[in-house]
């Protein structure tokens, strides 16, 4: 369970996240939608304690991230592709993180196998493609077998097989009773993966609902999304 309460973060005059409150419950995949620059990544960083909120707070299982006893065993996070040193192998990267939270070394090979990187585990991760980097990020998130997962744009750079793999993986993790919170700007992908949705625009909550509810009365989830975020789009091209 992730609880955001009145979460607020400013960068200079810009309000990136504006009094955001929502709950992410266990047992289903919750999609986190919003236009570019709407504050999705900042919200995730606030939940993980990487950025400091100006007001409000986020709790995971009732505790702030900083207070967790074995963070990786409670929360798994994928924030950006390639959050690893290019000169280090995938195996060493995961082994270091595992050691940081006293996770058995055997778990490293398990997650490498799970994400399909066993064959590349000894190579320098700097040579990885974007998709392989994402797989390594997913492996790191799953390392501690956590009950709560946060993933920021996990399908970026993945091939169709990888996209389907992530979709099935997230759904099965949620079916095991875990809390799964996934941001994306790909509405069609969220329509297939998520049951619940948190939609934000310009840092504010626009909807906290289910995919079924939001799609109701619109031709597609995409149409419903545009109707909802029409006024909150910050960067728009000219057709």
């Amino acid at each position, binding site marked *: 369970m992730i609880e955001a309460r009145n979460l607020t973060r400013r960068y200079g005059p810009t309000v990136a996240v504006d009094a955001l409150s929502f709950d992410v419950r266990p047992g289903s995949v919750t999609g986190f939608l919003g236009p570019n620059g709407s504050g999705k990544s900042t919200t995730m960083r606030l939940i993980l*304690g990487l950025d*400091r909120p100006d007001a409000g707070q986020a709790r995971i299982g009732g505790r702030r991230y900083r207070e967790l*006893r*074995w*963070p990786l065993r409670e929360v798994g996070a994928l924030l950006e592709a390639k959050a690893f040193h290019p000169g280090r192998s995938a195996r060493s990267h995961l082994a270091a993180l595992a050691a*940081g939270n006293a996770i058995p070394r055997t778990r490293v090979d398990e997650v490498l196998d799970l994400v399909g990187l066993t064959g590349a585990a000894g190579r320098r991760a700097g040579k990885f493609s974007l998709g392989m980097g994402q797989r390594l990020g997913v492996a*790191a998130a799953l390392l501690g077998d956590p009950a709560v997962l946060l993933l920021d744009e996990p399908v970026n750079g993945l091939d169709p097989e990888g996209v389907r793999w992530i979709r099935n993986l997230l759904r099965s993790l949620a079916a095991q009773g875990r809390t799964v919170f996934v941001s994306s700007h790909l509405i069609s992908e969220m329509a297939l993966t998520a049951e619940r949705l948190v939609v934000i625009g310009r840092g504010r909550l626009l909807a906290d609902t289910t995919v079924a509810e939001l799609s109701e009365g619109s031709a597609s989830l995409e149409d419903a999304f545009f109707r909802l975020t029409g006024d909150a789009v910050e960067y728009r091209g000219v057709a």
Partner: protein
Amino acid sequence: MTGRYGLAQAARMEWIKLRSLRSTWWTLAVTAAGTVGIGLAVGLNSKDASADLTNNALAGVVPGLLLTGALGVLTMTGEYTSGTIRATLAAIPRRPLVLAAKAAVFGAVTLIVGEAAAFIAFFAAAATLRHGIAAPALGDPGVLRAVVLSGAGFCLIGLLGLGLGAIIRYSAAAVGVLVAGVYVVAQVIGFVAHSAAAYMPILILENSLSTTRPVTCGPGADSCPSFLSAWAGLGVMSLYAVIALTAGGWLLARRDA
């Protein structure tokens, strides 16, 4: 699972990170080889039996230090350049603990490598002295101290670099500040303000840590700073490292990652 992550887990994590980069071992190997090589060259050319031969043998320490200092910087800034810092802080959200663990692991590794380099340089230079000069022995007054403290210099400059890396976060800028602070500014201040010169890291290393007897200036001694004693020099160098690490830890805990 009971308990909570602490320094032991953080240190194990940092040790795996440090040892799993090939650049770590290359840099340390070049540091040691350079230190020994320069010591040998200077030793071979020593002609004055009354000179501080131990100090001559340790002549490679100061250039070698630059590499451990830069490695210290990169140990921290590399996390920011690559984005690893987010993964690190996800595992160890109590941030000062991360820097403490890095300092412990990196400090231990550079101390071991630094001592090895200093001792090898000393013995190599002593074994190859020419011109009929008697080699200094570890048992001679001040010799063991000079060799041990020179080895410690690698660790202290490395930790200074680590602290600067945590403060500045950008590799190029932090290495620049380290080189400027340790090498360039020291030379300038040495010319302008003689009393402050004794407190410059490089001059502490050259004139306090790696000497067996107080440095005297000979003619023109009125323009010569009175250098710190070896132990006072060690204290001042340690203080620099502690200040950089404390400031770095304080900033790490307060800034967005």
